[in-house]
């Protein structure tokens, strides 16, 4: 394995290996919640936070428990259980103690458990054999990349004039086409920085 600086991994995760545009993860909430900019930013920030914390938890459990007892084949179960439990706990805590934060970000938490981007990060961290700092960089970068992508999409969609689009293309289909074009644009970043 080539040692890569965690800072470079952050940039790579934002641009060259953007979760949405090159791995297509987290598409469901990306399409459903990208109608307005404030909502998109709220969801993006929640995703980034949850992604960072759960990836670190999963990293620790993976190397201290799963690898030691040869249980790597069970990583899916453990990872998703940790994500689900963490999201639910976080929701309860925010709702009780930080209501303002809850009303702006917490309400998106139930959408996050089934967001494949979160689980995806934990799985890629294992297949790419990152060390702790690299994992941290990768999680933070991917979160920011996701936030950037959904905000950009919300910006475009809020300026889209629905009337000038053929009726059958309105809504999801046109969003998919825009995403496709954006993905092609992001191909331009390839080769700029390396992720592995």
């Amino acid at each position, binding site marked *: 394995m080539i040692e890569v600086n965690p800072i470079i991994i952050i940039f790579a995760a934002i641009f060259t290996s953007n979760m949405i545009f090159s791995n297509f993860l987290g598409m469901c909430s990306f399409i459903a919640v990208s109608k307005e900019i404030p909502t998109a930013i709220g969801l993006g920030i929640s995703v980034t936070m949850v992604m960072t914390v759960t990836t670190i938890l999963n990293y620790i459990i993976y190397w201290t428990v799963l690898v030691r007892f*040869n*249980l790597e084949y069970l990583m899916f179960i453990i990872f998703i259980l940790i994500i689900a439990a963490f999201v639910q706990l976080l929701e309860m805590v925010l709702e009780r103690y930080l209501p303002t934060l809850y*009303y702006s970000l917490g309400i998106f938490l139930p959408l996050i458990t089934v967001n494949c981007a979160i689980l995806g990060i934990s799985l890629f961290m294992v297949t790419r054999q990152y060390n702790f700092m690299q994992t941290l960089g990768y999680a933070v970068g991917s979160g920011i990349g996701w936030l950037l992508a959904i905000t950009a999409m919300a910006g475009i969609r809020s300026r889209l004039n629905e009337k000038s689009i053929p009726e059958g293309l309105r809504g999801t289909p046109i969003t998919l086409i825009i995403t496709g074009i954006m993905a092609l644009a992001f191909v331009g970043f390839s080769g700029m920085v390396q992720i592995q």
Partner: protein
Amino acid sequence: MNTILTTIFIVTCITAILATLLTISNKTIGNYGEVTLTINDDKEYIVQGGNTLLDTLRAESIFIPSACGGKGSCGYCKARVLEGGGPVLATEKPLLSKEELDSNVRLTCQCKVKQNIKIEIPEELFNVKEYAVYIEKIEQLTSTIKLLRFNFGDEEISFKPGQYVQLKAPAYEGNEEEVYRAYSIASSVNDTHAVELLIGYTGGIATTYVHHHLREGDQAHVNGPYGDFYYHEDDGGPIILAGAGTGMAPIMSILQYMADNDIKRKAIFFFGARTVDDLFLLDKLKMLEEKLYDFKFIPTLSREESQEWKGEKGRVTIAIDKYVEKGGNYTAYLCGSPQMIDSIVEALLKKEIPLEKIYYDKF
């Protein structure tokens, strides 16, 4: 074998820890204690806080219609929250109009009960329930109208005379979608373990189901009661009832209510039909005429050629013109097709009966 046991042990430890964490926090952080839920300013419930309003109401057997199951995407579960609902959430805004936001309307599946809360919901939702019923009796009244008696078993329904229930027509051979159709209750409100419906055959999904597929003893589903067409205890003046075909159903319920409660009001029932063959439930009406304080049944036939018919002929409005006194302090209940009701309302207005004393149910 050993490896399998260690695996089970380790994973179980992890899930047990997570489950414990969640359970404890559910008992502590997620526990908002008991709060008071006030509905429409008069009914109070002591409920467990921490759940959504929709779930809380459901636990109290108040069913607010909801199609998406609490995901905040259908926008059906609206209700006015007057106090204690917290700020409107971003997940609700796309589904609420400006007027609704101004009048404190919220999505009950998103709004959580964390403190004492006051809400307002349509009164009729209190009683609405879904009942699993079976068909006790089917009676062919005329060539196209059947009377069906749905038995509720141990359950009870409470409704006002004149209200309707919805009957579910499930998918059957030749029909793939499930539909609900409304039918007025023809039976007495005291008969709480059953409802009787009059259902005429029109060739539609639900009436085809009723006329060609339902047999005595079959299972069916109804929910209700609904509707703001029902008997009003007002000034006690004389009552005009008018209907045609299956529109007799709510009127029968009103008449039986009057008989059961010995209400001493003058009542006159104009029933429109084409020929003698289209008249039904005559024995029951005869009985009511004897039992009630002052009740007259006036069938008017528009197409009867036979010389034996001694009753009224022509349209209902002609009979009304003949029997109703101008300026009498009447209250009117009408149930029938829109055209029929429009013409009767016109005739009643001519008799100087104010519009607010004319209740009707168009179908």
